[in-house]
Protein backbone atom coordinates (compact mmCIF):
# COMPACT_ATOMS: atom_id res chain seq x y z
CA UNK A 1 0.00 0.00 0.00
CA UNK A 2 1.29 3.46 -0.85
CA UNK A 3 0.73 5.99 1.93
CA UNK A 4 -0.03 9.40 0.47
CA UNK A 5 0.21 12.46 2.73
CA UNK A 6 -2.86 14.40 1.63
CA UNK A 7 -2.26 18.12 2.33
CA UNK A 8 -5.83 18.41 3.61
CA UNK A 9 -6.55 15.14 5.42
CA UNK A 10 -3.17 13.79 6.48
CA UNK A 11 -1.54 10.51 5.48
CA UNK A 12 -3.95 7.98 4.01
CA UNK A 13 -3.84 4.66 2.12
CA UNK A 14 -3.61 5.04 -1.64
CA UNK A 15 -6.78 2.97 -2.01
CA UNK A 16 -8.65 6.12 -0.90
CA UNK A 17 -7.25 7.91 -3.94
CA UNK A 18 -7.88 7.74 -7.65
CA UNK A 19 -4.91 7.98 -10.03
CA UNK A 20 -5.02 10.74 -12.61
CA UNK A 21 -1.85 10.66 -14.66
CA UNK A 22 1.15 12.64 -15.79
CA UNK A 23 0.93 16.10 -14.19
CA UNK A 24 3.35 17.60 -16.69
CA UNK A 25 0.70 17.48 -19.42
CA UNK A 26 -0.71 20.93 -20.14
CA UNK A 27 -3.77 21.02 -22.32
CA UNK A 28 -3.51 23.61 -25.09
CA UNK A 29 -6.09 26.23 -25.98
CA UNK A 30 -9.25 24.88 -27.59
CA UNK A 31 -8.31 26.48 -30.91
CA UNK A 32 -4.69 25.29 -30.79
CA UNK A 33 -3.46 23.33 -33.84
CA UNK A 34 -4.20 19.60 -33.97
CA UNK A 35 -0.50 18.79 -33.40
CA UNK A 36 -0.59 20.48 -30.00
CA UNK A 37 -3.63 18.43 -28.99
CA UNK A 38 -2.08 15.25 -30.37
CA UNK A 39 0.95 15.90 -28.17
CA UNK A 40 -1.13 16.55 -25.04
CA UNK A 41 -3.63 13.71 -25.46
CA UNK A 42 -1.48 10.89 -26.82
CA UNK A 43 2.25 11.47 -26.31
CA UNK A 44 3.88 10.63 -22.98
CA UNK A 45 7.35 10.99 -21.49
CA UNK A 46 6.70 7.79 -19.46
CA UNK A 47 9.47 8.62 -16.98
CA UNK A 48 11.37 5.86 -15.20
CA UNK A 49 12.24 7.78 -12.09
CA UNK A 50 10.76 10.71 -10.21
CA UNK A 51 7.70 12.12 -11.93
CA UNK A 52 4.88 14.47 -11.00
CA UNK A 53 1.44 12.96 -11.29
CA UNK A 54 -2.10 13.85 -10.33
CA UNK A 55 -4.18 11.92 -7.81
CA UNK A 56 -7.65 12.69 -6.48
CA UNK A 57 -8.53 11.99 -2.87
CA UNK A 58 -11.76 10.43 -4.06
CA UNK A 59 -12.82 8.83 -0.78
CA UNK A 60 -11.63 11.76 1.32
CA UNK A 61 -11.64 15.48 0.65
CA UNK A 62 -12.11 14.90 -3.13
CA UNK A 63 -9.34 17.41 -3.84
CA UNK A 64 -6.86 16.89 -6.68
CA UNK A 65 -3.25 16.79 -5.57
CA UNK A 66 0.12 16.63 -7.32
CA UNK A 67 2.33 13.82 -6.08
CA UNK A 68 6.03 13.60 -6.83
CA UNK A 69 6.71 9.85 -6.93
CA UNK A 70 9.47 7.54 -8.13
CA UNK A 71 8.02 5.11 -10.69
CA UNK A 72 10.81 2.62 -10.02
CA UNK A 73 10.48 2.42 -6.23
CA UNK A 74 7.05 3.99 -5.54
CA UNK A 75 8.71 6.31 -3.03
CA UNK A 76 6.77 9.57 -2.60
CA UNK A 77 8.90 12.71 -2.42
CA UNK A 78 6.36 15.50 -2.11
CA UNK A 79 2.65 16.25 -2.27
CA UNK A 80 0.98 19.56 -2.97
CA UNK A 81 -2.51 20.77 -3.91
CA UNK A 82 -3.17 20.77 -7.66
CA UNK A 83 -5.26 23.95 -7.38
CA UNK A 84 -3.62 26.22 -4.80
CA UNK A 85 -6.39 28.80 -5.07
CA UNK A 86 -8.99 26.24 -4.17
CA UNK A 87 -6.75 24.98 -1.41
CA UNK A 88 -6.89 28.38 0.28
CA UNK A 89 -10.66 28.22 0.45
CA UNK A 90 -10.20 24.98 2.38
CA UNK A 91 -7.77 26.46 4.93
CA UNK A 92 -8.68 26.14 8.63
CA UNK A 93 -9.51 29.87 8.89
CA UNK A 94 -12.10 29.48 6.15
CA UNK A 95 -13.65 26.14 6.88
CA UNK A 96 -13.62 22.82 8.71
CA UNK A 97 -11.44 20.99 6.21
CA UNK A 98 -8.29 20.37 8.26
CA UNK A 99 -9.16 17.08 9.82
CA UNK A 100 -5.70 15.57 10.12
Amino acid at each position, binding site marked *: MLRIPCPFCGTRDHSEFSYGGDASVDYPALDAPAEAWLEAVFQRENIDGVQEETWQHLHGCRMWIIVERD*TRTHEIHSVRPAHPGMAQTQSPERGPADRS
Partner: protein
Amino acid sequence: MKAYSAWNVFLNGLSGQKGWTRAWRDPEPRAEYDVVIVGAGLHGLASAYYLAKNHGITNIAVLEKGWLGGGNGGRNTTIVRSNYMMPGNREFYEHSLKLWEELSHDLNYNVMFSQRAHVTLLHSPAARDGAARRYNTMRLTGSDGELWDLPTLKRHIPHLNYDADARFPIIGATVQPRAGTARHDAVAWGYARAADQRGVDIIQNCEVTGVDRCDGQVSGLQTNRGVIRAKKVGFAVAGNTSRLWRMAELGKLPIESHKLQAFVSEPLKPLLDQVVVFGVGGAHFYISQSDKGGMVFGGDLDWYKSYAQRGNLPLVQDVAECATSILPCLGRVRLLRHWSGVMDMSMDGSPFLCKTPLNNLYLNAGWNYGGFKASPASGWYFADLIANDRPDPVIANHTLERFAQGVNIDERGAGPDPKLHG
Protein backbone atom coordinates in the same frame (compact mmCIF):
# COMPACT_ATOMS: atom_id res chain seq x y z
CA MET B 1 21.78 -30.51 -31.42
CA LYS B 2 19.48 -33.50 -31.18
CA ALA B 3 15.84 -33.34 -32.19
CA TYR B 4 13.45 -34.06 -29.35
CA SER B 5 11.61 -37.25 -30.23
CA ALA B 6 10.47 -40.50 -28.62
CA TRP B 7 13.17 -42.31 -30.60
CA ASN B 8 15.91 -40.03 -29.28
CA VAL B 9 14.63 -40.37 -25.73
CA PHE B 10 14.85 -44.14 -26.20
CA LEU B 11 18.34 -43.99 -27.73
CA ASN B 12 19.62 -41.72 -24.98
CA GLY B 13 18.05 -44.04 -22.46
CA LEU B 14 20.67 -46.62 -23.45
CA SER B 15 23.36 -44.23 -22.16
CA GLY B 16 21.49 -43.03 -19.07
CA GLN B 17 20.08 -39.89 -20.77
CA LYS B 18 23.57 -38.39 -20.71
CA GLY B 19 23.71 -37.60 -24.44
CA TRP B 20 21.68 -34.39 -24.42
CA THR B 21 23.39 -31.07 -25.07
CA ARG B 22 22.33 -27.61 -23.93
CA ALA B 23 19.31 -26.23 -25.77
CA TRP B 24 21.01 -23.06 -26.99
CA ARG B 25 24.56 -21.72 -27.11
CA ASP B 26 25.92 -18.89 -24.96
CA PRO B 27 27.94 -17.00 -27.60
CA GLU B 28 30.13 -13.93 -27.20
CA PRO B 29 28.64 -10.99 -29.12
CA ARG B 30 30.24 -10.28 -32.48
CA ALA B 31 31.07 -6.75 -33.62
CA GLU B 32 28.38 -6.60 -36.29
CA TYR B 33 25.16 -8.36 -37.32
CA ASP B 34 22.66 -8.01 -40.15
CA VAL B 35 19.85 -7.67 -37.61
CA VAL B 36 19.99 -7.01 -33.89
CA ILE B 37 16.81 -7.47 -31.86
CA VAL B 38 16.83 -5.85 -28.43
CA GLY B 39 14.91 -7.96 -25.95
CA ALA B 40 14.93 -11.78 -25.75
CA GLY B 41 11.36 -12.06 -24.59
CA LEU B 42 8.82 -14.07 -26.52
CA HIS B 43 8.44 -11.35 -29.17
CA GLY B 44 12.16 -10.83 -29.73
CA LEU B 45 12.90 -14.55 -29.89
CA ALA B 46 9.94 -15.23 -32.19
CA SER B 47 11.05 -12.37 -34.45
CA ALA B 48 14.56 -13.82 -34.72
CA TYR B 49 13.16 -17.29 -35.38
CA TYR B 50 10.85 -16.16 -38.20
CA LEU B 51 13.57 -13.93 -39.71
CA ALA B 52 15.69 -17.06 -39.99
CA LYS B 53 12.92 -19.44 -40.99
CA ASN B 54 10.77 -17.32 -43.32
CA HIS B 55 13.31 -14.87 -44.70
CA GLY B 56 16.63 -16.71 -44.60
CA ILE B 57 18.33 -14.04 -42.48
CA THR B 58 20.47 -15.81 -39.91
CA ASN B 59 23.19 -13.31 -39.00
CA ILE B 60 21.10 -12.11 -36.07
CA ALA B 61 21.72 -11.30 -32.44
CA VAL B 62 19.03 -11.08 -29.78
CA LEU B 63 20.23 -9.00 -26.83
CA GLU B 64 18.79 -9.57 -23.37
CA LYS B 65 19.67 -7.48 -20.32
CA GLY B 66 18.69 -10.21 -17.89
CA TRP B 67 18.01 -13.84 -18.56
CA LEU B 68 15.85 -15.41 -21.18
CA GLY B 69 12.20 -15.50 -20.18
CA GLY B 70 12.80 -13.32 -17.11
CA GLY B 71 10.51 -10.51 -18.23
CA ASN B 72 6.84 -10.67 -19.11
CA GLY B 73 7.37 -13.97 -20.94
CA GLY B 74 7.63 -15.53 -17.50
CA ARG B 75 5.09 -13.20 -15.88
CA ASN B 76 1.70 -13.79 -17.40
CA THR B 77 -1.43 -15.91 -17.14
CA THR B 78 -0.67 -17.80 -20.39
CA ILE B 79 -4.05 -17.26 -22.04
CA VAL B 80 -4.21 -17.67 -25.82
CA ARG B 81 -7.31 -16.49 -27.72
CA SER B 82 -8.28 -14.54 -30.82
CA ASN B 83 -11.60 -12.98 -29.84
CA TYR B 84 -10.78 -9.53 -31.16
CA MET B 85 -13.15 -7.47 -33.26
CA MET B 86 -11.34 -4.49 -34.74
CA PRO B 87 -10.05 -4.78 -38.33
CA GLY B 88 -6.33 -5.54 -38.24
CA ASN B 89 -6.48 -6.99 -34.75
CA ARG B 90 -8.78 -9.86 -35.62
CA GLU B 91 -6.73 -11.00 -38.62
CA PHE B 92 -3.57 -10.59 -36.56
CA TYR B 93 -4.71 -12.58 -33.52
CA GLU B 94 -6.38 -15.27 -35.64
CA HIS B 95 -3.10 -15.74 -37.51
CA SER B 96 -1.41 -15.99 -34.13
CA LEU B 97 -3.86 -18.67 -32.97
CA LYS B 98 -3.21 -20.67 -36.16
CA LEU B 99 0.54 -20.47 -35.47
CA TRP B 100 -0.06 -21.61 -31.88
CA GLU B 101 -1.90 -24.67 -33.18
CA GLU B 102 1.24 -25.87 -34.98
CA LEU B 103 3.85 -24.31 -32.70
CA SER B 104 5.01 -27.42 -30.83
CA HIS B 105 5.67 -29.27 -34.10
CA ASP B 106 7.18 -26.23 -35.75
CA LEU B 107 9.66 -25.64 -32.91
CA ASN B 108 10.19 -29.32 -32.05
CA TYR B 109 9.45 -28.26 -28.49
CA ASN B 110 6.35 -29.05 -26.50
CA VAL B 111 4.81 -25.69 -25.59
CA MET B 112 1.87 -27.58 -24.03
CA PHE B 113 -0.70 -25.60 -25.97
CA SER B 114 -4.04 -26.71 -24.61
CA GLN B 115 -7.13 -25.65 -26.56
CA ARG B 116 -9.44 -25.90 -23.61
CA ALA B 117 -11.89 -23.11 -24.59
CA HIS B 118 -12.13 -19.53 -23.39
CA VAL B 119 -15.43 -18.80 -21.67
CA THR B 120 -16.53 -15.20 -21.09
CA LEU B 121 -19.43 -15.00 -18.66
CA LEU B 122 -22.44 -12.85 -19.54
CA HIS B 123 -24.67 -11.13 -17.02
CA SER B 124 -27.27 -9.17 -18.95
CA PRO B 125 -29.17 -9.36 -22.25
CA ALA B 126 -27.35 -6.21 -23.43
CA ALA B 127 -23.98 -7.81 -22.74
CA ARG B 128 -25.13 -10.92 -24.60
CA ASP B 129 -26.14 -8.85 -27.64
CA GLY B 130 -22.83 -6.99 -27.63
CA ALA B 131 -20.89 -10.23 -27.31
CA ALA B 132 -22.94 -11.85 -30.09
CA ARG B 133 -22.00 -8.97 -32.37
CA ARG B 134 -18.32 -9.32 -31.45
CA TYR B 135 -18.26 -13.09 -31.96
CA ASN B 136 -20.20 -12.91 -35.23
CA THR B 137 -17.71 -10.32 -36.48
CA MET B 138 -14.86 -12.65 -35.51
CA ARG B 139 -16.47 -15.51 -37.40
CA LEU B 140 -16.36 -13.44 -40.58
CA THR B 141 -12.55 -13.62 -40.44
CA GLY B 142 -12.54 -17.34 -39.76
CA SER B 143 -12.23 -17.36 -35.96
CA ASP B 144 -14.50 -19.67 -34.03
CA GLY B 145 -17.05 -18.39 -31.56
CA GLU B 146 -20.10 -19.77 -29.82
CA LEU B 147 -22.88 -18.42 -27.63
CA TRP B 148 -23.77 -20.73 -24.74
CA ASP B 149 -27.11 -20.46 -22.96
CA LEU B 150 -27.29 -21.08 -19.24
CA PRO B 151 -28.06 -24.86 -19.35
CA THR B 152 -25.12 -25.43 -21.72
CA LEU B 153 -22.80 -23.41 -19.50
CA LYS B 154 -23.97 -25.30 -16.38
CA ARG B 155 -23.32 -28.60 -18.12
CA HIS B 156 -19.73 -27.61 -18.96
CA ILE B 157 -18.84 -25.75 -15.75
CA PRO B 158 -21.20 -26.87 -12.98
CA HIS B 159 -19.52 -25.18 -10.03
CA LEU B 160 -19.70 -21.47 -10.88
CA ASN B 161 -21.85 -19.29 -8.67
CA TYR B 162 -25.23 -19.58 -10.42
CA ASP B 163 -27.17 -18.16 -7.46
CA ALA B 164 -30.09 -16.04 -8.59
CA ASP B 165 -29.25 -13.55 -5.83
CA ALA B 166 -25.61 -13.16 -6.88
CA ARG B 167 -24.68 -9.52 -7.38
CA PHE B 168 -24.32 -10.24 -11.11
CA PRO B 169 -26.30 -13.41 -11.94
CA ILE B 170 -24.82 -15.39 -14.83
CA ILE B 171 -27.11 -15.75 -17.86
CA GLY B 172 -24.79 -17.48 -20.32
CA ALA B 173 -21.39 -17.14 -21.96
CA THR B 174 -19.56 -16.45 -25.17
CA VAL B 175 -17.02 -19.12 -25.92
CA GLN B 176 -14.04 -19.56 -28.19
CA PRO B 177 -13.42 -23.32 -28.22
CA ARG B 178 -10.02 -23.11 -29.99
CA ALA B 179 -8.62 -20.74 -27.37
CA GLY B 180 -6.74 -22.00 -24.33
CA THR B 181 -3.45 -21.83 -22.51
CA ALA B 182 0.19 -22.72 -23.12
CA ARG B 183 3.30 -23.23 -21.01
CA HIS B 184 4.89 -19.77 -21.05
CA ASP B 185 8.48 -20.77 -20.22
CA ALA B 186 8.39 -23.49 -22.86
CA VAL B 187 7.46 -20.91 -25.48
CA ALA B 188 10.54 -18.84 -24.63
CA TRP B 189 12.79 -21.90 -24.50
CA GLY B 190 11.30 -23.38 -27.67
CA TYR B 191 11.77 -20.23 -29.70
CA ALA B 192 15.28 -19.74 -28.28
CA ARG B 193 16.33 -23.28 -29.13
CA ALA B 194 14.79 -23.18 -32.62
CA ALA B 195 16.32 -19.77 -33.40
CA ASP B 196 19.70 -20.85 -32.06
CA GLN B 197 19.60 -23.95 -34.28
CA ARG B 198 19.26 -21.67 -37.27
CA GLY B 199 22.32 -19.67 -36.27
CA VAL B 200 20.83 -16.83 -34.21
CA ASP B 201 23.08 -15.59 -31.38
CA ILE B 202 21.11 -15.15 -28.15
CA ILE B 203 23.18 -12.96 -25.87
CA GLN B 204 22.00 -12.83 -22.29
CA ASN B 205 23.21 -10.41 -19.60
CA CYS B 206 23.79 -7.85 -22.34
CA GLU B 207 22.08 -4.57 -21.53
CA VAL B 208 21.77 -1.81 -24.10
CA THR B 209 23.02 1.40 -22.50
CA GLY B 210 23.03 3.72 -25.48
CA VAL B 211 21.93 4.00 -29.08
CA ASP B 212 24.39 5.51 -31.60
CA ARG B 213 22.80 7.50 -34.41
CA CYS B 214 24.29 8.61 -37.68
CA ASP B 215 22.52 10.15 -40.70
CA GLY B 216 19.00 9.23 -39.60
CA GLN B 217 19.99 5.65 -38.86
CA VAL B 218 20.99 3.57 -35.88
CA SER B 219 24.67 2.90 -36.42
CA GLY B 220 25.29 0.80 -33.35
CA LEU B 221 24.19 -0.15 -29.87
CA GLN B 222 26.25 0.57 -26.79
CA THR B 223 26.02 -2.37 -24.42
CA ASN B 224 27.70 -3.50 -21.22
CA ARG B 225 29.50 -6.04 -23.44
CA GLY B 226 30.81 -3.54 -25.96
CA VAL B 227 29.50 -1.81 -29.07
CA ILE B 228 27.44 -3.94 -31.42
CA ARG B 229 26.82 -2.62 -34.93
CA ALA B 230 23.81 -3.65 -36.97
CA LYS B 231 22.40 -3.05 -40.42
CA LYS B 232 18.89 -3.21 -38.98
CA VAL B 233 17.70 -2.92 -35.38
CA GLY B 234 14.42 -4.02 -33.82
CA PHE B 235 13.21 -2.96 -30.38
CA ALA B 236 11.06 -5.59 -28.65
CA VAL B 237 11.29 -4.57 -25.01
CA ALA B 238 7.69 -4.08 -23.92
CA GLY B 239 7.57 -2.43 -20.49
CA ASN B 240 10.79 -0.52 -21.13
CA THR B 241 10.12 0.78 -24.64
CA SER B 242 10.08 4.42 -23.54
CA ARG B 243 13.51 4.07 -21.92
CA LEU B 244 15.07 2.68 -25.08
CA TRP B 245 13.22 5.26 -27.16
CA ARG B 246 14.80 8.03 -25.09
CA MET B 247 18.25 6.48 -25.57
CA ALA B 248 17.65 6.83 -29.31
CA GLU B 249 16.65 10.47 -28.67
CA LEU B 250 13.29 9.96 -30.31
CA GLY B 251 11.19 11.82 -27.74
CA LYS B 252 7.81 10.74 -26.47
CA LEU B 253 5.67 7.68 -27.22
CA PRO B 254 1.92 6.98 -26.92
CA ILE B 255 2.78 4.47 -24.18
CA GLU B 256 2.70 4.35 -20.37
CA SER B 257 4.29 1.60 -18.28
CA HIS B 258 1.88 0.06 -15.80
CA LYS B 259 2.12 -3.04 -13.69
CA LEU B 260 -0.15 -6.03 -13.92
CA GLN B 261 -0.27 -8.70 -11.27
CA ALA B 262 -0.96 -12.39 -11.63
CA PHE B 263 -1.53 -15.06 -9.04
CA VAL B 264 -1.22 -18.80 -8.59
CA SER B 265 -2.79 -20.88 -5.84
CA GLU B 266 -1.63 -24.07 -4.21
CA PRO B 267 -2.15 -27.10 -6.51
CA LEU B 268 -5.62 -28.62 -6.54
CA LYS B 269 -7.13 -31.73 -8.08
CA PRO B 270 -8.63 -31.02 -11.54
CA LEU B 271 -11.29 -28.38 -11.00
CA LEU B 272 -11.58 -26.10 -14.00
CA ASP B 273 -11.24 -27.37 -17.57
CA GLN B 274 -11.57 -24.00 -19.33
CA VAL B 275 -10.32 -20.44 -19.15
CA VAL B 276 -13.09 -18.45 -17.47
CA VAL B 277 -13.41 -14.68 -17.70
CA PHE B 278 -15.60 -12.55 -15.45
CA GLY B 279 -15.96 -8.90 -16.36
CA VAL B 280 -18.94 -6.79 -15.37
CA GLY B 281 -19.38 -3.64 -13.33
CA GLY B 282 -15.99 -2.94 -11.81
CA ALA B 283 -14.90 -6.56 -11.98
CA HIS B 284 -12.21 -7.90 -14.26
CA PHE B 285 -11.02 -11.41 -13.65
CA TYR B 286 -9.68 -14.38 -15.61
CA ILE B 287 -8.78 -17.82 -14.33
CA SER B 288 -7.55 -21.19 -15.52
CA GLN B 289 -5.92 -24.21 -13.95
CA SER B 290 -2.35 -25.13 -14.77
CA ASP B 291 -1.25 -28.68 -15.50
CA LYS B 292 0.35 -28.77 -12.05
CA GLY B 293 -3.05 -27.96 -10.55
CA GLY B 294 -2.47 -24.37 -9.48
CA MET B 295 -5.28 -21.94 -10.16
CA VAL B 296 -3.71 -19.21 -12.32
CA PHE B 297 -5.60 -15.94 -12.31
CA GLY B 298 -5.38 -12.19 -12.64
CA GLY B 299 -7.38 -9.01 -12.83
CA ASP B 300 -6.88 -5.32 -13.40
CA LEU B 301 -3.75 -3.19 -13.46
CA ASP B 302 -2.60 -1.60 -10.23
CA TRP B 303 -3.93 1.70 -11.66
CA TYR B 304 -0.83 3.80 -11.16
CA LYS B 305 2.19 4.02 -13.44
CA SER B 306 5.16 1.92 -12.45
CA TYR B 307 8.39 0.34 -13.64
CA ALA B 308 8.64 -1.81 -10.50
CA GLN B 309 7.96 -5.50 -11.02
CA ARG B 310 6.12 -5.48 -7.70
CA GLY B 311 2.37 -5.54 -7.13
CA ASN B 312 0.31 -3.90 -4.43
CA LEU B 313 -2.16 -5.34 -1.95
CA PRO B 314 -5.44 -3.52 -2.76
CA LEU B 315 -5.46 -5.31 -6.11
CA VAL B 316 -4.85 -8.65 -4.40
CA GLN B 317 -8.02 -8.07 -2.39
CA ASP B 318 -9.93 -6.95 -5.46
CA VAL B 319 -8.92 -10.04 -7.44
CA ALA B 320 -9.67 -12.35 -4.49
CA GLU B 321 -13.16 -10.84 -4.26
CA CYS B 322 -13.73 -11.56 -7.96
CA ALA B 323 -12.49 -15.12 -7.50
CA THR B 324 -14.81 -15.93 -4.64
CA SER B 325 -17.78 -14.24 -6.26
CA ILE B 326 -17.78 -16.53 -9.31
CA LEU B 327 -16.03 -19.58 -7.82
CA PRO B 328 -17.04 -19.62 -4.14
CA CYS B 329 -15.40 -23.06 -3.86
CA LEU B 330 -12.02 -21.27 -3.95
CA GLY B 331 -12.77 -19.47 -0.69
CA ARG B 332 -10.33 -21.45 1.43
CA VAL B 333 -7.68 -22.07 -1.21
CA ARG B 334 -4.33 -20.54 -0.30
CA LEU B 335 -2.39 -18.26 -2.58
CA LEU B 336 1.00 -19.74 -3.42
CA ARG B 337 2.61 -16.68 -4.98
CA HIS B 338 1.87 -13.56 -6.95
CA TRP B 339 3.99 -11.50 -9.25
CA SER B 340 3.85 -8.37 -11.33
CA GLY B 341 5.04 -7.47 -14.80
CA VAL B 342 5.53 -4.09 -16.44
CA MET B 343 3.11 -3.57 -19.32
CA ASP B 344 3.48 -1.26 -22.26
CA MET B 345 -0.01 0.26 -22.07
CA SER B 346 -0.73 2.09 -25.31
CA MET B 347 -3.17 4.92 -25.82
CA ASP B 348 -5.77 2.78 -27.59
CA GLY B 349 -4.99 -0.65 -26.19
CA SER B 350 -3.46 -1.95 -29.43
CA PRO B 351 0.19 -2.64 -30.21
CA PHE B 352 2.79 -1.05 -32.45
CA LEU B 353 4.55 -3.08 -35.15
CA CYS B 354 6.00 -0.42 -37.34
CA LYS B 355 8.79 1.57 -38.85
CA THR B 356 10.18 4.50 -36.91
CA PRO B 357 11.67 7.94 -37.63
CA LEU B 358 15.06 6.21 -38.02
CA ASN B 359 15.08 4.28 -41.26
CA ASN B 360 16.79 1.09 -40.06
CA LEU B 361 15.00 0.95 -36.70
CA TYR B 362 11.79 -1.04 -36.23
CA LEU B 363 9.45 -1.02 -33.25
CA ASN B 364 7.58 -3.89 -31.62
CA ALA B 365 5.81 -2.49 -28.55
CA GLY B 366 2.61 -1.50 -26.80
CA TRP B 367 1.21 -4.97 -26.12
CA ASN B 368 -0.95 -4.02 -23.15
CA TYR B 369 -2.46 -7.22 -21.70
CA GLY B 370 -2.23 -9.05 -25.01
CA GLY B 371 1.43 -9.87 -25.46
CA PHE B 372 1.56 -13.57 -24.66
CA LYS B 373 -1.06 -14.78 -27.11
CA ALA B 374 0.32 -12.41 -29.73
CA SER B 375 3.91 -13.56 -29.62
CA PRO B 376 3.92 -15.96 -32.64
CA ALA B 377 2.17 -13.50 -34.98
CA SER B 378 4.15 -10.61 -33.52
CA GLY B 379 7.38 -12.38 -34.43
CA TRP B 380 5.96 -13.40 -37.80
CA TYR B 381 4.90 -9.90 -38.89
CA PHE B 382 7.85 -8.13 -37.24
CA ALA B 383 10.27 -10.40 -39.12
CA ASP B 384 8.39 -9.65 -42.34
CA LEU B 385 8.55 -5.92 -41.60
CA ILE B 386 12.30 -6.00 -40.91
CA ALA B 387 13.14 -8.25 -43.87
CA ASN B 388 11.04 -6.41 -46.45
CA ASP B 389 11.09 -2.91 -44.96
CA ARG B 390 7.32 -2.54 -45.39
CA PRO B 391 4.39 -3.62 -43.22
CA ASP B 392 2.10 -6.47 -44.19
CA PRO B 393 -1.44 -5.14 -44.87
CA VAL B 394 -2.63 -6.81 -41.62
CA ILE B 395 -0.42 -4.52 -39.51
CA ALA B 396 -0.72 -1.48 -41.78
CA ASN B 397 -2.46 0.54 -39.06
CA HIS B 398 -0.37 -0.67 -36.12
CA THR B 399 1.79 2.42 -36.42
CA LEU B 400 2.76 5.30 -34.15
CA GLU B 401 1.09 7.70 -36.60
CA ARG B 402 -2.38 6.19 -36.24
CA PHE B 403 -3.40 8.71 -33.54
CA ALA B 404 -2.60 11.64 -35.82
CA GLN B 405 -4.48 9.92 -38.64
CA GLY B 406 -7.53 9.12 -36.51
CA VAL B 407 -7.32 5.36 -37.08
CA ASN B 408 -7.09 4.36 -33.43
CA ILE B 409 -7.61 0.63 -32.86
CA ASP B 410 -9.51 0.91 -29.59
CA GLU B 411 -10.89 -2.59 -29.00
CA ARG B 412 -12.50 -1.61 -25.71
CA GLY B 413 -13.67 1.87 -26.67
CA ALA B 414 -12.05 3.27 -23.53
CA GLY B 415 -10.40 6.34 -25.06
CA PRO B 416 -6.85 7.68 -24.72
CA ASP B 417 -6.18 6.59 -21.13
CA PRO B 418 -3.65 3.74 -21.10
CA LYS B 419 -4.66 2.32 -17.73
CA LEU B 420 -8.20 1.64 -18.95
CA HIS B 421 -7.21 -0.72 -21.75
CA GLY B 422 -7.30 -3.91 -19.73
